[in-house]
């Protein structure tokens, strides 16, 4: 009964069009009322949900990503990728994936990547005779790779939601190989689709041009070195490294690239505070929702249910993956991490899965949810940036979905892809 109120309430409110953050709180309050818990507990959980030190990295990573876009760093990464892989068939598609991978290494957000790379690449591809749907589909699926390539603010949410101090540094390192693998697989698909649709190829500008592009991009790419080096060596915490990334981006934007003015800076701050408030408000109310789930013992019951069906790790992970993929189609990533981590992580640990490895599985799995309708924020951003209607995108996105799911399966069932480097860097 209480469970029906909780989930029924959530689905009803979401279907009506109540914003996700408010719907999560409303459903939790309704459930609390049925159980007989005072509403002040829900509000207290909301407050506790944002009073988390590690979450401070989220506004900073969002801010840094926006500043990088305005400082023209995304554009410089595109030039490097173009000089490197532009010459093959469908070359600009590969450039798009490559630039998204590099942007993922300097920024922490898939949405920032889709808008930054997309607003540079999609018009360029259209101009060179690529169809709009292809351009946007490559952009949005490549943006998902950025969730795996460190830094990644969703890994910080996972670390906070795990409640057992899964190390952010370990998660960041664990994402590197899965990120590269998924990126290269997407490049393969892009190339195959481009061949099938007979898309144009670019010309190789020569090694000199490649080196020049690389040198121009190095100050931007160095952000990745600062963040990862700082966290791995223990010099900075994740929060500090994200703040340093913002300060560093401002410095190179103003002093090196001279492309960042006061107006752009202030616009970026206002834009980022909106995005950060949206994400963190949902995390806060999802905390109340997660509390209600825990009260109703949903995690233990679901664990028992899955344990009843199977105790085989391969099967268990398959069940969890399918459930997360289904949830991801209509829920956003951040609340799903907050809500489902306490449910599925103990189940996964129960069948011997490493919490770091499980985090990487969740990143890619829920990342796929960001590019699937009816609710897929990265897909929406791509559709808006590229001015291509969703219906046109959905018709031709299948090869990319299949690639992401194939990558998900590889990452799920080959733990060493995630954990190999972690052992190497273990402090």
């Amino acid at each position: 009964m209480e469970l029906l109120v909780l989930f029924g309430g959530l689905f009803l409110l979401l279907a009506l069009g109540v914003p996700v953050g408010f719907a999560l709180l409303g459903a939790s309050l309704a459930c609390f009322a049925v159980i007989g818990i005072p509403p002040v507990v829900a509000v207290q959980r909301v407050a506790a949900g944002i009073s988390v030190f590690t979450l401070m990295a989220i506004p900073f990573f969002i801010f840094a990503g926006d500043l990088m876009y305005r400082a023209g760093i995304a554009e410089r990464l595109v030039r490097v990728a173009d000089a490197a892989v532009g010459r093959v068939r469908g070359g600009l598609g590969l450039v798009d994936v490559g630039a998204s991978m590099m942007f993922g290494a300097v920024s922490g957000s898939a949405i920032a990547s889709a808008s930054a790379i997309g607003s540079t690449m999609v018009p360029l591809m259209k101009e060179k005779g690529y169809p709009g749907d292809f351009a946007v589909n490559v952009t949005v699926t490549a943006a998902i790779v950025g969730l795996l390539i460190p830094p990644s603010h969703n890994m910080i949410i996972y670390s906070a939601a795990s409640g057992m101090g899964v190390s952010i540094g370990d998660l960041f390192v664990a994402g590197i190989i899965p990120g590269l693998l998924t990126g290269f697989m997407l490049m393969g698909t892009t190339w195959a689709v481009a061949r099938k649709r007979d898309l144009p190829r670019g010309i190789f500008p020569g090694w000199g041009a490649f080196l020049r592009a690389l040198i121009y991009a190095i100050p931007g790419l160095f952000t990745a070195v600062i963040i990862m080096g700082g966290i791995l060596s223990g010099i900075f915490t994740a929060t500090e490294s994200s703040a340093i990334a913002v300060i560093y981006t401002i410095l190179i934007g103003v002093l090196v690239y001279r492309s960042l003015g006061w107006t752009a800076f202030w616009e970026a701050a206002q834009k980022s505070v909106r995005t950060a408030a949206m994400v963190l408000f949902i995390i806060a109310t999802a905390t109340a929702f997660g509390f209600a789930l825990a009260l109703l013992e949903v995690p233990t019951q679901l664990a028992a249910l899955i344990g009843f069906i199977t105790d085989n790790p391969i099967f268990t992970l398959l069940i969890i993956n399918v459930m997360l993929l289904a949830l991801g189609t209509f829920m956003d990533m951040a609340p799903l991490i907050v809500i489902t981590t306490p449910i599925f992580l103990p189940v996964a640990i129960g069948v011997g899965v490493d919490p770091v490895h499980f985090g990487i599985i969740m990143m890619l799995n829920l990342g796929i949810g960001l590019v699937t309708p009816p609710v897929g924020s990265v897909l929406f951003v791509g559709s808006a940036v590229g001015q291509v209607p969703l219906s046109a995108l959905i018709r031709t996105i299948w090869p990319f979905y299949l690639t992401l799911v194939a990558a998900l399966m590889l990452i799920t069932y080959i733990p060493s892809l995630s954990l190999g480097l972690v052992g190497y860097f273990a402090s």
Partner: protein
Amino acid sequence: MARRMSDWLIRLGAAGLVVMMLVIGWQVFGRFVLDSSPSWTEQASLLLMIWYVMFAAAAGVNEGFHIRISLLEDRLGARARPLRRIVAAVVALMGLVFVIYGTQLCWGVRANAIPSLGVSRALAYLPLPISGLLMIWFALQRMWSGVADGSDIGESDIGAGDVPGPEVQA
């Protein structure tokens, strides 16, 4: 009036973000250059974040940048006005919850101090009732007019908070 208020909330929030960056920057500077880690910086920036997140979240009710599913509304088209009123009423109700129980929380912890800052813990809860009040105001205004907000999630456009480019911003 509501529009100007929500613009100011965003400006305050953006200033909060910049100050938070400076505070954490100072923390790093303090540790490496001055060789003494200031003890107040982490608590202060967390407090700051709670304030600006709640302020900007309230502004989001006015600007309509909170992510939501608008499939039903899109389908109803011109007849969606009553639906929008219901949605605004739910948001206003949540605002009321923040006002009542946020105040209760503030009152409950008014005598406790936040370690390393020395201020009352009520300051960490105070943004909730304030933001709740603003949410009620913005939502009621929306209920009154029954207009769609600037940027619904749907086929045509996306949350204004998502895209840096001015060309797609609502």
